[in-house]
């Protein structure tokens, strides 16, 4: 191939490849590739281009109009002939979501567009330098070999973009509107409202008081819920995995049973088990001469019961994970420790615990953050009760997420709910990012 490239190199006219193909690609996606005689790639890109043009012409202007105005026509009655007919106006919420969908689609196409221009430029440059371009098959081969990570994550990422990022953007946008139950589409149009809801939550005493109280309990709840599950699961895992404990399989199966029962069922069951009047727990207690305990009706006891129930439902998963990790610890580490004369506690402290923590530490932070969002247990066990007269639409055991639920589903205060949602999101994001950073450092310095 060398003599061919040398001949091409000699001709000054051919120096234009880079520029021409890039410019062609800017004009029409895939055209540069066509010029570079990469037909397979070009056809794929041209098809995408056709879809992109359709999107940009048919959908995008409407999407942008929708996002900016949130609809202009109200649902109203119009006289047609002799009778009044209801004319459906713009549905602000549908417009907002559809607008977001098309803007995101356009962003996907735009990023492919950028890659297309870069590719055309690079291929043109290669031709100028006398290199031979990949055939379509070679391109695919190259991508499979050297662009594997990007290819492999692109499909999940598109799913995440539309089913996670889009809804989040939607929720964030809601916080800046006046979307409440008294102002619902399609009867009414929704307007942009700026930061007013944010101001209200922090300025109005009734809101801010609830907000701080609920936030404090959310953190306490997450802390105790995570800690109890972890140490409970750890303890049980250690006991079960002792070499001389028999029926290991049986024990593990027993402990996992609560997990096998759908959470909403077991929580509803436990709610009855802890029922203050008829519940079996209080019945057993009264048999032992202990007066009934207000498990779910006293604020402090209700909080305690929540943590207890969460522990019962949560520790089996922790135990499973920890058993999984324990099974990866090389036997010879313990054998070496035995030879060195280490006691059981010493082995636990210097081998088992660090190994478990190595895998579990980032997960524990995530558990903590997950518990801050642990809707099911609280909603199904106490429903946020007992009632707190000082709070705005929240009970004593409500955490931020259940308060958010009440605000949106029960009270229809969608914009307030969105502000709470954003607040939760900011806290969680801060924890998660801190966690990732720390984990990375952890790994680079790790000796495992």
């Amino acid at each position, binding site marked *: 191939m060398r003599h061919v490239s040398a001949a091409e190199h000699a001709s000054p006219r051919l120096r234009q490849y880079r520029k021409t193909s890039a410019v062609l690609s800017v004009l029409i996606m895939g055209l540069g590739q066509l010029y570079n005689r990469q037909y397979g790639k070009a056809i794929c890109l041209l098809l995408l281009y056709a879809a992109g043009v359709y999107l940009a012409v048919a959908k995008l202007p409407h999407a942008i109009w929708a996002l900016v105005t949130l609809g202009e026509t109200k649902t109203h009655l119009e006289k047609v002939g002799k009778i009044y007919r209801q004319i459906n106006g713009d549905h602000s919420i549908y417009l907002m979501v559809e607008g977001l*969908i098309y803007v995101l689609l356009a962003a996907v196409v735009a990023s492919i567009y950028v890659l297309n221009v870069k590719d055309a430029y690079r291929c043109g440059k290669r031709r100028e330098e006398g290199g031979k371009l990949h055939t379509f098959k070679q391109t695919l081969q190259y991508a499979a070999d050297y662009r594997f990570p990007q290819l*492999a994550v692109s499909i*999940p990422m598109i799913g995440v973009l539309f089913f996670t990022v889009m809804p989040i953007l939607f929720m964030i946008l809601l916080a800046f509107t006046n979307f409440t139950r008294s102002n619902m589409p399609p009867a009414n149009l929704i307007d942009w409202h700026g930061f007013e809801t944010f101001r209200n939550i922090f300025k109005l005493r009734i809101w801010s008081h609830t907000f701080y109280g609920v936030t404090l309990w959310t953190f306490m709840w997450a802390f105790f819920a995570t800690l109890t599950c972890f140490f409970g699961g750890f*303890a049980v895992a250690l006991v079960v995995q002792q070499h001389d404990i028999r029926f290991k399989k049986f024990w593990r199966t027993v402990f996992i049973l609560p997990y096998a029962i759908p959470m909403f*069922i077991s929580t509803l069951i436990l709610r009855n088990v802890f029922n203050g009047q008829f519940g079996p727990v209080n019945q057993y207690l009264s048999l032992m001469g202990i007066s009934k305990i207000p498990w779910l009706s006293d604020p402090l006891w209700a909080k305690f019961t929540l943590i207890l129930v969460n522990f019962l439902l949560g520790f089996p998963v922790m135990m499973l994970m920890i058993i999984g990790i324990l099974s990866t610890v090389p036997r010879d580490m313990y054998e070496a420790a035995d030879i060195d004369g280490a006691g059981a506690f010493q082995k636990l402290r210097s081998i088992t615990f660090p190994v478990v923590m190595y895998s579990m530490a980032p997960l524990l932070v995530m558990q903590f953050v997950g518990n801050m969002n642990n809707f099911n247990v609280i909603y199904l066990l106490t429903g946020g009760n007992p009632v707190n007269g000082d709070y705005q639409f929240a009970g004593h055991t409500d955490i931020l997420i259940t308060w958010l639920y009440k605000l949106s589903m029960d009270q229809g205060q969608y914009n307030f709910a969105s502000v709470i949602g954003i607040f939760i999101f900011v806290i969680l994001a801060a924890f998660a990012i801190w966690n990732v950073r720390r984990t990375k450092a952890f790994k680079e310095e790790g000796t495992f």
Partner: protein
Amino acid sequence: MASKTVRTLTRRTFSYIFLAVTAVLCLYPALWVLMSSVRPGDTLFSESLLPSQFTLAHYRDLFTKYPFMQWYANTLKISVISTISGSVLVLMTAYVFSMFRFAGRQNLMSMLLVLGLFPGFMSMIAIYILLNQMNLLNTHLAVIIVSAAGAPLFFLFSKSYFDTIPRSLVEAARIDGAGHLGTFARIVMPLSKPLLVFVILMNFTGPFTDFIFAKLVLRTPEKKTLAVGLYDMATDTTKLQFTVFAAGCVLVAVPITLLFLMLQRYLIGGLTSGADKG
């Protein structure tokens, strides 16, 4: 020597007591449901845990008064398909993040972790409208897509697991000429059976027991899943039949428990130790 025997004995005794007490705590709710499901009548409360009379009428009611078989078939279909697609997506994502270094990797990982923490139901309104746009409302495909699309967000556990697999093993396979997918399927996966089992269990129980989202999407009775059907049963205050509901719960818990029993042996045993090539 004698003191050591005593110590071992005490440790074992306490261990067994500890396990037994924990087991009772764990089994109590399950037993409660089981016993309720064979108790005559339809109320929640009972005088004793053990019913004085046994009946299987509630199980029969499930199949005669409710489309329970249909719900079961729907649930299995949805769970199996979303387990396969969700597991593939999350394992691939975790594998890529664990084994490869590429531009934007750190940021992408942070982003996914943060997104995974997002409270679900605020997003349901938006997803509902998106599914409406795609003409997927009241279809099982909608539940499958949403569940599979959410799976990669929970890549962290799998990634930590892949991190413990020696890189030299993967590099050796690459040098021997295996492609990335081949390495993943034939070298890494066999070493990751416990992880695989865990991921499959997680991805299976999710759609199997989710009722909040499925309830939103699946509207007609013949499209319902077990969880939606049971939840509607439990929350229908006009004709609440707790005992029939309990029978349904037993039938939901049984396959998951069986699945776990079947897969359990993979969760045990040494893993990457000694598997390092060379």
